[in-house]
């Protein structure tokens, strides 16, 4: 620690070089934190899934519906505590560019089964009372500047819902207490869509609450068995599996973002390592003099290594601060079906850790070379 002044002096030797290195490490950490935040944004929903909710869909695929009469059969399966259903509406607000998730829910039971949806008691009863009412997630409300009482019109997207436009009144703006429910969606009464549908009494997916997670496989199997060999065969799975299947639709995000992150780290290692090497080469004579004076090789090693580490960590701090400020839903355009992205504490810690690693690795070779410098050779060299 007594050598800290020496290390700082060395770093200030070439302010420009130090600044440029800090900039490149900062950018690398910024990118890394951003990529991790993006990945988290996509996987957060699945990770936060409830372990006591299971989803039932048509086995053929999600785009096919099931008759709502399935509900009675499902309720009779032992282990089922509660049931609700929802339909993907796919309505168009203004045009494709403004699209967002909107679905029809069986209102009372859905709100009961998803305690993550937070609504004031007034808004809740207003919504339940108005058949053409709807509730909007707070992020979506913010994007479109909506307040309670505004009217929203959706054009029909999926032909089965008829041809007339659907008018809604916003009865509530909900917040979410967990990533399992996002706040970029709109939900409204299933009955309103059903009365205008070309085929009545259809549900898109059923959500069932089970008593405990270990009953999942058994209850899911029993539900599917009820409809096996019928024209409306089902496939029941955990909420987590359901959410994960949506994420996998984007492609192998892990691989893509991970590869980019790797490239970022390698590029920065080149740059930072280069800087340290140049800095050491410049000081060959000084290092030789210090060795002559009796500084052990180990101390020389530490001096160089700490200088590298210091520059990198400063860069890391700048990078995470930048990431924290720039990457959050208020600044970034999100909306539609891209999840909200923000940099949380874990990403920050990993970012700082990364900068330390970059500092350590980039300083390693120059520090070792400096420590092993032959005094005689070094003093002979002219600059």
């Amino acid at each position: 620690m007594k050598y800290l002044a020496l290390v700082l002096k060395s770093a200030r030797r070439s302010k420009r070089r130090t600044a440029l290195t800090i900039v490149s490490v900062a950018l690398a950490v910024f990118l890394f934190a951003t990529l991790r935040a993006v990945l988290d944004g996509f996987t957060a929903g699945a990770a936060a899934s409830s372990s006591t909710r299971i989803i039932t869909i048509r086995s053929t695929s999600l785009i096919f519906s099931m008759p709502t009469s399935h509900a009675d059969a499902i309720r009779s399966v032992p282990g089922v505590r509660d049931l609700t259903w929802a339909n993907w509406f796919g309505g168009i607000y203004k045009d494709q560019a403004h699209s967002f998730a909107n679905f029809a829910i069986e209102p009372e039971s859905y709100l009961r089964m998803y305690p993550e949806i937070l609504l004031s008691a007034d808004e809740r009863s207003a919504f339940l009372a108005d058949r053409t009412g709807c509730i909007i997630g707070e992020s979506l409300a913010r994007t479109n500047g909506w307040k309670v009482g505004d009217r929203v019109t959706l054009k029909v997207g999926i032909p089965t819902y008829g041809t007339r436009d659907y008018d809604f009144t916003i009865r509530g703006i909900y917040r979410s207490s967990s990533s399992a429910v996002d706040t970029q969606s709109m939900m409204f009464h299933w009955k309103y869509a059903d009365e205008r549908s070309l085929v009545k009494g259809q549900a898109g997916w059923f959500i069932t609450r089970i008593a405990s997670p270990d009953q999942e496989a058994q209850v899911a199997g029993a539900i599917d068995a009820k409809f096996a060999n019928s024209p409306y065969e089902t496939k029941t799975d955990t909420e987590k599996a359901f959410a994960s299947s949506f994420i996998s639709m984007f492609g192998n995000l892990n691989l893509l973002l991970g590869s980019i992150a790797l490239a970022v780290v390698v590029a920065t290692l080149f740059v930072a390592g280069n800087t340290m090497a140049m800095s050491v080469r410049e000081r060959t004579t000084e290092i030789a003099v210090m060795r002559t004076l009796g500084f052990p090789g180990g101390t020389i090693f530490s001096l160089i290594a700490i200088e590298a580490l210091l520059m990198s960590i400063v860069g890391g701090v700048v990078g995470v601060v930048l990431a924290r400020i720039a990457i959050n839903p208020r600044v970034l355009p999100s909306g539609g079906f891209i999840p909200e992205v923000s940099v949380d504490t874990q990403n920050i810690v990993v970012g700082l850790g990364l900068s330390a690693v970059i500092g350590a690795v980039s300083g390693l070779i120059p520090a070792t070379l400096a420590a092993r410098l032959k005094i005689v050779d070094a003093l002979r060299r002219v600059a």
Partner: protein
Amino acid sequence: MGLISNYNLRSMLVRKATAAMTAGGIAMVVAVFVMTLAIAQGFRATLVASGSPQNAIVLRKGATSETVSAVLRGDVPILESLPQIARDGDGRPLASPELVVIIALPRSTDNQPANVPVRGVGPRAFALRTNLKFVEGRPLTPGTREINVGRLATGRFKGLSLGSDVKFGSNTWKVVGIFTADDASFESEVWGDVDLMQPAFQRNGYQSMTVKLADPSMFDSFKAAVEGDPRLMLEPQREQDYYADQSRPVTTLISVFGTFVTLILSIGAMAGAMNTMYAAVAYRTREIGTLRALGFGRLRIVSAFLVESVALAAIGGAAGCILALPVHGLSTGTTNFSSFSEVAFKFRITPALLAGGLVFAMVMGAVGGLLPALRAARIPVARALREI
């Protein structure tokens, strides 16, 4: 020119390690740039190959994609009677009423359920799509539960190989042929007879009609005829325009993301290049002083150092392009959200993309090397000569 080739370019080789590391940093940036844009290009190419200039696709008025469109049974004979449609040897109209549904099949990479597009087609669908070739088996026989599968689909989803029995829509269907279509989106699809698929999926009616025009110039009169007919609530589009629109959201997303990442990375690489060039100038101050004393003008010095920086970056760029090349032709897939179906496509590196990467590298070199080059020219000669 002599100064540049004799002095600067050879000076690069003097400090090999430093030059290599700087070039390495730039190489990584260019590699990321090329690879991410190769994804966007590949996706776009697949969707564009799906559209033929002579074909038109007819959808419901206002429908943004096939999956949300509806074409009634009664509309088909009206459309088929239009004169702008080409006819085959037997005088039958080259038109195919179609229906696309999605079935869930496990993906071969992660076993997750994937949205596989199943397209019911009319008997003349194969004549309409000229780039379709069968690599295994034969076309399906209309009126039977035979199906054909695109080659990219057989690779990406499980259970679709030749001879397999696939169960969906409460029936079992047999794969009798595998086809390729220049990597068009059709290669990610399963095709079957549309009139058998309708009852199998409890549907009544089609979603779209694809027609081959007698001549591409007839599109406008075809469009006027369809839109002017009060019995039809339909709207034709050129097939190429339709697929270009379909690919736009995903292509834009990938391109924006790739550009964002690369831009930020490039600032770091430019900082590295700047560092290197400043060090090079500092190291060679005496030589620069000598050159100035000999009579080389400031502009010569600036341009010489700039060229050195650009050349170094160009080498890095070339290395980055070579690093990125292996991904060309790699199969991957994503979900086209307009149609909610999974599209398999290949990474596609074009010469234009490689050229772009090289130019990008040289720009990084120029920007990074500018300030150091200016500094090199501004050192007072006498002081420079005194440096050791």
